[in-house]
């Protein structure tokens, strides 16, 4: 599919929620029908704007989890003290309208022309844009080695688990808070030793995308550079505690 070049000013538009799917107890995917969608690239996000009856507004950014060519879908984690994520994951229903603008992003994007091997490192809901990349690779039949290192609190919190297990990509989980009985995988926060074991050797000139909370991203990116990865090969996207960004 031709890459949609996004030039020019975006406008806010009203989308309709076409379907909702709970991924985990705290995470929901919203499939959206966006009337004037220009198409999107894997890794891009959109901005959502909510307006209350008294005019109060809240805006947040959410990564698109669906690959190019498929309907726009965002995957949202509900934050306990959040203002927007509880609305999106609990109140919003199929048929409701949602104001948004997008797609946004020209740096944290991947397509077949960018090559590989591909190293994707996800902290929690940072997996969403990386999933768009993996789905794109799969749907387009792109023959590039790909490895996902995915840090999650528990196995129950792993988003897209069944699909990840079925994908033709190496997925390495690390469960930082609690592991199921018999777990033989990693059971700690991503550190230099873990990364050294999982990352492609730097000589293979991998393309890296790291996404998650700021401290996670900075630890991972810093360590990869120490392992010999050129900084320009390591692309990062930091999520904030405000949900999405």
């Amino acid at each position: 599919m031709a890459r949609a070049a996004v030039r020019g000013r975006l406008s806010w538009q009203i989308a309709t929620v076409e379907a909702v799917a709970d991924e985990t107890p705290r995470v929901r995917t919203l499939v959206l029908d966006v009337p004037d969608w220009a198409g999107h690239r894997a890794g891009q996000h959109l901005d959502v704007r909510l307006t209350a009856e008294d005019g109060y507004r809240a805006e947040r950014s959410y990564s698109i989890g669906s690959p190019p060519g498929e309907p726009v879908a965002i995957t949202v984690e509900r934050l306990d003290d959040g203002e927007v994520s509880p609305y999106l994951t609990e109140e919003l229903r199929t048929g409701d309208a949602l104001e948004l603008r997008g797609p946004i992003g020209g740096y944290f994007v991947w397509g077949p022309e960018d090559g590989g091997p591909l190293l994707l490192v996800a902290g929690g809901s940072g997996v969403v844009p990386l999933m768009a990349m993996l789905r794109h690779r799969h749907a387009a039949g792109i023959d590039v080695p790909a490895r996902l290192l995915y840090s999650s609190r528990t196995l129950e919190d792993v988003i897209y688990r069944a699909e990840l297990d079925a994908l033709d990509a190496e997925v390495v989980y690390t469960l930082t808070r609690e592991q199921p009985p018999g777990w033989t995988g990693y059971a700690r926060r991503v550190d230099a030793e873990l990364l050294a074991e999982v990352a492609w050797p730097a000589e293979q000139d991998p393309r890296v995308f790291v996404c998650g909370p700021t401290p996670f991203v900075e630890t991972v990116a810093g360590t990869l550079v120490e392992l010999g990865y050129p900084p320009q090969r390591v692309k990062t996207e930091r999520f904030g505690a405000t949900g999405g960004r």
Partner: protein
Amino acid sequence: MSDFISRGFRGHRRESGDPSRVPPGQYVTSDFPVLSAGPTPHTRLEEWTFSIGEGDGRRTWTWDEFQALPSETVTVDIHCVTRWSKLDTVWEGVSVDTLLAEAGEDDAHPYLLAYCDGGYTTNVPLEDVTGGKAWVAFGYDGEPLEPEHGGPARLLVPHLYFWKSAKWVRGLALRDEDEPGFWESNGYHIYGDPWLEQRYAGD
């Protein structure tokens, strides 16, 4: 402007509260939101100083010297330009009156510019920090002021929007003119009276 309303969206509870205590356009919060224009500085107390004035007339205190000054505990309401207000906040600090007196400053300079670790600045007229209206606060709610809320010490000027209560304050420079600080140079009101809703320049 779009008329679009998100069905069922309320956001966090926004109580307007008692209008005699809560300025127009504000809502009362029980949280203490953390806002910042940059990374939290972590100045060690051994390195911390506070100064008033510049050049030969400059008076500087170390942390220990500062702690030896008479301080007071005050309960005040605070109002952020981003619309939250917090009532009955309890602070411990040294009154700016005390600091100016100790520095031997008269009212020759009608304005001051507060400057802070990290480079933040804000301007205030002298008469708005004297007469018991302002403090350099090092304690909040009975505890040492946390770095994310401005510790070791912040300026506290509760009758103006809270961006004037500069976090990580390190000194007050005296000025003959009202020199706009960081937010004042970026579209915010030069004075910032919440009761007149002076949020932006031109309000």
